[in-house]
């Protein structure tokens, strides 16, 4: 089965430096990533090659345990991780991209964030059905996560 890629973009009314700071904290994903119940293991500020683990929402009250490996860091711009534990979704790759933008005419006061995942669906035809059902929820979760991230940074007082 071919790879699926989902991508959502939003403008956060907070500077990219603060966004980068929070996104880089591997202990804090449960605070803003929709669907992460808890971070069960982490290594502090993200480092390439190191891992962190989560308990994630799947369907309804069900949860799964996932492990992520940090693959690529380009400060203030890009963060790429790969994850395991989301069967029937395989070869999961999570990509965050950031770009400073103007908000209310103030240059650099905001951040354009792109939240994307790539994965391959297993289980043959059944997997395709599951994927089709899952996609709208994932897109909604990405948007909610970015909203949560903005709220968190605003609440911290920047």
């Amino acid at each position, binding site marked *: 089965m071919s790879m699926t890629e989902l991508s959502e973009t939003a403008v956060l009314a907070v500077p990219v430096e603060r966004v980068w700071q929070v996104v880089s904290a591997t202990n804090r994903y449960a*605070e803003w990533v929709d669907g992460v119940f808890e971070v069960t293991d982490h290594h502090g500020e993200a480092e390439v090659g190191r891992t962190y683990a989560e308990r994630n929402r799947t369907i309804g009250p069900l949860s799964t345990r996932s492990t992520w490996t940090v693959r690529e860091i380009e400060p203030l711009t890009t963060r790429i991780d790969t994850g395991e534990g989301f069967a029937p979704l395989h070869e999961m790759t999570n990509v965050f991209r950031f770009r400073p933008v103007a908000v209310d005419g103030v240059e650099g006061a905001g951040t354009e964030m792109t939240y994307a995942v790539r994965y391959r669906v297993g289980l043959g035809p059944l997997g395709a059905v599951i994927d089709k059902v899952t996609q709208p929820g994932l897109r909604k979760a990405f948007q909610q996560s970015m909203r949560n991230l903005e*709220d968190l940074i*605003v*609440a*911290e*007082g920047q």
Partner: protein
Amino acid sequence: MPRAARVDVAIVGAGLAGLTAARALVAAGRSVVVLEARDRVGGRTLNHDLGDGQVVEAGGQFVGPTQNHILGLAAELDVKTFPAYTEGEAVYVRGGRAKRYAGDVPPDPTALADVAVTMARIDRLARRIPLGAPWQARNAARLDAVTFDSWIRDTTVSAAGVDLVNIFFGSAYGGTAADASALFSLHYVAGMGDEDHPGSIARGIGVEGGAQQDRFVGGSQGVSLAMAEQLGDRVVLDAPVRAIDQNGRTVKLRTDAGVWQAGHAIVAVPPPLAGKISWSPLLPAPQAALFDRMPMGNLMKCEAVYDEPFWREDGLSGQATFRSPDSAICSMFDNTPPSGGPGVLMGFLGGRAWRALAHRPPRERRAAVLRTFARAVGREALRPRDYFEQDWSSEEWTRGGPTSVLAPGVLTALGAWRDRPFGLVHWAGAEHADYWNGYMDGAVRSGRDAAAAVIDVLEGTER
């Protein structure tokens, strides 16, 4: 040293209990000194300056019906009360969903039956607890062998009853029902009344008609400040008592500010701190063991200040309860001063949430609190003009709050030692009260009781 004059009674601690005791003793013609470790009076009452002459409390603040001792004292001192803000709808947040509601009953139909059964059971059994000797209650041993959490879960279908109690205990205990013995908790509820009105959990939880009904104009610390003003230089600040020696005739108190000798002493500090004083002779072993087993809860008050109480325009009272084990805040109140501005939201961060967040960087904790507020009153809550916290566990001279919580086994084994005088030393403080234990009213009652006991002894000696 110049102030080493002998006094009739030395009092340790210038909180509500100690100052009340001092005032009563002075009124009875006795000489007193009040030795306070901090550079201020008031103990667990503490005003926070909002500017423009306005304050809001960072410590104990609410009073209500049957708390006649603190209310009477405040009236004597001309400290007035005003009603806590209750106009508009409250908000009930369960998981991520917020529901507005009017009245006292949260909109959670699946929980109502269990909550009603739990509250009725608590009240029914609390009435059978002898207030002055809970260890003599029927089934005392059985009730003291389990946590309040276990006791509630044994006879309820869902977790709703425990959840409700935990929302309350998050602020009242700085903990949960799992931290406390069932007997201790029933005794605690039994004391939420007065000699004419049996205690009830509804009175403890409630705002109108309950323990959160009113606040003090000028802040609750004003009561202590007014007493300290009357007592004048009898109150000595920055004088932590390090050691207390007694020989049957006099008590010697060694402090960082010198040594005082007294005919009697009243120790009016939290029991765990009393146990840390160097005693000669040593405290009776069971009393020391009890004080060691009276740990204070873990509670932080978190308050956000806004230009206006914006939630009021939206028809909200600013009150919210959060039924979620991972919520930073268990309950929230509109803490705006009586003038109507600035707007202040106050939340209790206690017990499990305290353990999860107290060690986190302040900025992260602030975000957790404000996002919880925002669930109830909207995203405007994310941008306060000021934010402050008071973590009572990090206060050297309190070490927790709001009160001591006894685990299973302690009350039946050691409870009788709580108020027992040790030679010339008597005890006071909010934890040494049967009515409104842990509350301002309990502190005032205990101060009066301790003073009366010392006066009795003094008058008996003089006869």
